[in-house]
């Protein structure tokens, strides 16, 4: 690549003509190198669209193959509550139910804790405390999920079994996976909410203090409502992470689809099911293989919709204080 300006490109007329002004051609010239580079950079950008198309195409085609099988019907898929593709029972509800259960447990841990932590960090903490607490919380976000899975199985499960009794809590259970997942999502919720809270201008807080509100009242009745769009976005991104999380549930929530509402029982989530089946010896074009993509499609649609909603909320309901 040439890095020095191309001197020959400067029209000679300018130098030679003192007094008589001849027109300098300022029209954009085609530079082949520049055009090629721009083309390459555009291709890099467009690759992301192809990735999305690739995901939709792959999941769509294999799911279509799945639903074209004579033994499979969409009504069963969305209506039945037994998932055993090998014997043609293909109700997706056990998997969806387990996913919802673990995500619900995770959110009920991470949302209150995350929001409280965000309020503390943004409204109460001294700069020094903040500079210690915030990075420490963010370390949680950097820990690989397989490590959380190990933590769930070897620590949380044992604690749960000690509290609620070994007879009530199975070794693999949704509660332990859900709680640890909540801890995993906590830093995401707290840091996104804290960003939203910190973006609320100081003048609002001062107005509230001026009216005689206490710090708590200012935080909960002025700052939090003003930052609600950002907090809602954090909440939805959190759900999306919980639904798509794989390793914690694959390790700790149990292997084997089960339709149960008891959090202390084992049940397999959508992601856990995909991981277990594809981890074994899987023959292509079997019903198991195709069914994975139908489950994957479901997962992709749920998380994609959640992400879109979150972006819309931020874009539409963001309150601008200028």
């Amino acid at each position, binding site marked *: 690549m040439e890095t020095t300006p191309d001197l020959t490109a*400067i029209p000679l007329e300018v130098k030679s003509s003192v007094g008589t002004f001849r027109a300098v051609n300022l029209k954009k010239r085609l530079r082949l190198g520049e055009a090629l580079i721009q083309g390459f950079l555009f291709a890099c950008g467009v690759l992301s669209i192809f990735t999305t198309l690739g995901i939709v195409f792959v999941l769509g085609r294999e799911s279509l193959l799945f639903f074209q099988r004579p033994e499979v019907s969409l009504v069963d898929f969305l209506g039945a509550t037994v998932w055993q593709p090998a014997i043609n029972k293909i109700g997706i509800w056990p998997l969806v139910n387990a996913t919802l259960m673990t995500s619900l447990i995770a959110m009920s841990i991470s949302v209150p804790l995350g929001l409280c932590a965000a309020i503390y960090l943004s409204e109460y903490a001294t700069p020094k405390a903040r500079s210690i607490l915030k990075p420490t919380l963010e370390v949680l976000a950097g820990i690989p999920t397989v490590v959380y899975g190990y933590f769930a199985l070897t620590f949380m499960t044992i604690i749960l079994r000690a509290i609620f009794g070994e007879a009530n809590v199975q070794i693999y259970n949704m509660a332990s996976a859900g709680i640890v997942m909540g801890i995993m999502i906590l830093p995401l919720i707290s840091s996104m909410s804290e960003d939203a809270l910190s973006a609320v201008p100081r003048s609002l807080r001062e107005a509230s203090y001026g009216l005689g509100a206490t710090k708590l009242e200012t935080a909960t009745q002025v700052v939090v409502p003003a930052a609600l769009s950002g907090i809602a976005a954090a909440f939805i991104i959190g759900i999306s992470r919980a639904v798509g999380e794989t390793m914690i549930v694959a390790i700790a929530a149990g292997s084997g689809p089960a339709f149960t509402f008891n959090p202390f029982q084992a049940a397999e989530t959508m992601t856990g099911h995909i991981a277990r089946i594809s981890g074994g010896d899987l023959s292509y074009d079997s019903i198991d293989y195709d069914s994975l993509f139908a489950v994957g499609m479901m997962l992709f649609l749920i998380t994609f919709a959640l992400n879109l909603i979150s972006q819309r909320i931020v874009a539409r309901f963001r309150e601008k204080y200028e």
Partner: protein
Amino acid sequence: MSAPTLTFTSDQALQVRNRIGSVWRIIFLLATCIGIISLLALLYNIVDRSFGLVAYEYKVDPATLADRPLDQLSKEELVAVLQANISKGAFGKLEKDKPMADRSYDDIYGLVFERVVGQKVVATWPLTDSLLRRSEIEAELTEDEPQAVLQFRSWLSADFVTRPMASQAEFAGVRTAILGSLWLITITITIALPIGVGAAVYLQEYASDNPINRLIQTNINNLAGVPSIVYGMLGLAIFVRAWEPLTSGALFGVTDSNGRTILAAGLTMALLILPLIIINAQEAIKAVPDSLRQAAYGLGATKWQTVWSHVLPNAIPGILTGSILAISRAIGETAPLIVVGASTFITVNPDGPFSKFTALPIQIYTWTSRPQDEFRNIAAAAILVLLIMLLSLNSIAIILRNRFTRRL
């Protein structure tokens, strides 16, 4: 007339309000601390299981095998012990797998324990128990398993890092997994970094505000939120199956392989971290002051000259920081590798992009899934190795970030 009473009640109300305020302040602080306590519990749990007492049982007492303790013998003497105590056929088979002369001392030492001594783990205890209740453990053991020998063992050790995978936990190591992870990262970053930075440059410097470019931007933000396992399925269908001739190396004359190779996994990982790299690189490019661009244009530089010689050099620290964070994400990522088909039992080093492979998180996952306690111990040790790798990567990122903030 009513004024004093009113003041009194509002004072009282204020006290109540302040009291509620301080109670909640403590609740907020506790919520913050719960996160940190969980982090400490997690680290404690892993360290606790990486070290501790182990009770072994031997079929043959190792003291009777030679005139000195086994760990004082030379490699040749150990080979002799091995040859003397196992059948000719078994020895021949070992020799055929890999000649004794080529094997390392540790390898042969392990073989002697595995084949001759018949070492078996009876039970293991975590570190806290080992330190606090040692006498109880000893008493328990002499009652239940009088034959067993109690030893303190650090599951994380130099041997653990340098040994390959083995079927018995006490001889297993993570060398092949670490090498697999390193290969994977190399391929991932070679593919993802140029494309990611290219896309970021396009979006920040070239793209005008039209529907296609807006779509690209929205799409990248959305891709960052797609679950990693979905990328794994994309990799399975495209890279492992559809592109099998490429990823198995058949196009390059490699014959003994299918599509489940490092290359296929690396391509999948590259797609996975691409949105992260793009978003981080965009931030870094955005932070380059516009005056630099204007100065370059003013001197007659073309667009690409401006980008290449002014924008990118100033954005490099930020781009690198973002990329390192993306790499640490990729190192710990497990789910897509399971779907793409990382092998779990690999005893030879990966030797190129077309070899089968295992990776550190995959190893942790398989060991954690085993019911025996000793596999939980080596899983904890492997987690420590993984966390140390991540910690060093993140330290590099922090150093780069500090340098970056000093420069601009």
